[in-house]
């Protein structure tokens, strides 16, 4: 049986006294790619935030690599270092005086002060390797505010891959990308996941991508409505239950022009 990287049981999270996530349980086997899908307001981002310890939970247990998340939302430092997270958007407005190389370097540094003379060469090599592996080598000296949407997302993956980790959590990381950029990002994510042995949990609205790329799907609408393989969880009947009876999945056809 595969090692379980993340185990969530009976998770309940309230916002303004209202349960946004209620009695949710699931587990992520090592090196799996799991999609969290559901309508807007279903509690997907709240669930992710609670799992990461960013939001208080009212009930339930979260374990990462066997270690429990404390009631105050803290992981042991060694466990915390095994997690990378990419939110939907990062606030880069106007000219932002931070180069890609410096940004990726912050992904390498542990929390707390960094003394420039300690481990500088190891840090430099890790940054270069991360840039190489995410096809960002040529971007190293660019400002993060000068990047296109697709480049910026790849640089964020470099930020995650600069240090070995076990769990990568993505909250609609592909939002705002055009189809080719999204495709390239997903392929890169797939390659890195295989090479790094990452376990991935990604919130997504792109059901076609989920169908193609993910091993497991969690359908959330406050509670876990269904879970399983994409074929099982994304069947028309399940989707109608999740999104409402009027929901018809869009099918893209290439019909010859008459």
């Amino acid at each position: 049986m595969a090692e379980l990287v993340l185990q969530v049981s009976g998770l309940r999270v309230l916002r303004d006294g209202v349960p946004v996530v209620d009695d949710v349980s699931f587990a992520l086997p090592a090196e799996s790619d799991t999609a969290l899908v559901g309508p807007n307001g279903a509690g997907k981002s709240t669930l992710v935030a609670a799992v990461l310890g960013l939001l208080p939970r009212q009930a339930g247990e979260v374990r990462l690599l066997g270690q429990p998340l404390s009631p105050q939302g803290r992981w042991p430092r060694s466990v915390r270092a095994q997690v990378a997270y990419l939110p939907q958007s990062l606030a880069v407005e106007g000219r932002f005086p931070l180069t890609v190389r410096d940004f990726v370097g912050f992904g390498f540094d542990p929390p707390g002060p960094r003394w420039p003379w300690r481990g500088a060469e190891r840090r430099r090599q890790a940054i270069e390797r991360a840039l190489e592996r995410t096809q960002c080598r040529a971007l190293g000296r660019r400002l993060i505010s000068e990047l296109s949407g697709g480049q910026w997302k790849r640089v964020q993956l470099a930020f995650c891959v600069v240090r070995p980790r076990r769990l990568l959590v993505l909250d609609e990381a592909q939002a705002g990308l055009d189809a080719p950029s999204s495709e390239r990002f997903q392929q890169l994510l797939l390659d890195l996941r295989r090479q790094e042995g990452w376990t991935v949990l990604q919130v997504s609205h792109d059901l076609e991508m989920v169908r193609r790329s993910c091993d497991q799907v969690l359908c959330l609408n406050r509670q876990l409505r269904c879970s399983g393989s994409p074929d099982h969880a994304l069947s028309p009947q399940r989707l109608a239950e999740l999104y409402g009876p009027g929901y018809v999945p869009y099918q893209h056809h290439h019909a010859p022009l008459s």
Partner: protein
Amino acid sequence: MAAVEALPALLALPFMQRALLGGLLTGALGGLLGSVAVLRQLSFFSDALGHSALLGISLGILLGVNPTLVLVPFAVLFALLVNQLVQRSRLPTDALLNIVYSTSLAFAVVALSLVDTYRGNIQQLLFGDILGISWPDLWVIAGLAVLALGYLIVSLRAQVLLILNDDLAGAFGVRISAHRLAFIVLLAVVVAVSIKAVGVLLISAFVVIPACAARLVSRRFSTYVLTSVLLGGSCAVLGLLGSGLTNLPSGPCVVIVQFAGFLLALLWSRLVVPA
């Protein structure tokens, strides 16, 4: 020419020496904290804090206590209150700050109108009196500068991640609330201590202008912070010298030099720095 001849005499004056040192430290400190405040979109916070500080000063006068002693606890309390309001209220931060600082200003004017024995000069409160800076004031500012520098060096990674996204920072081990609070309190103390030199109306310029100018010309984060510090300190010294030589008010002279520095940075960014 006459100005150049007058310079040695001006530099020999003890109060001018103290003012130059005070300007250098205050300007550098404003540039240091401003570099983070601007990116964290706290520019208006420092402006509101400066304006609201007038209430602290007025309360000090009303109670017969040295206004400078009231100012620091008042500013810290104000910062904590605003931080709570921003987190708990669902109103936009700028609207909330506007409500708080205009109300503080109104109370300050009412409090000052109740005092008929106040001999101070309102002009000094509004635009500062850097020429009246004393050695104890300088020691306090220097200590604060060391504290601020130490904090920012230790928390540089945390500050950058917090600028980009609170949740990103939290997921990578940054204690979001602690750092947010620490920075706001530090900014409040710096604003309160600098007000004597700079005045309530001009304090935000010390925080915002050098950082914005540095942002236009810097590519690396460390260079950006350093440029902001150097611009803040050097503009203050140049402004004070200009003020001393032309007999114009010192605080406004410093801000005019800062603005000139900003224009130069803008020009530099258009002509030299790659887009």
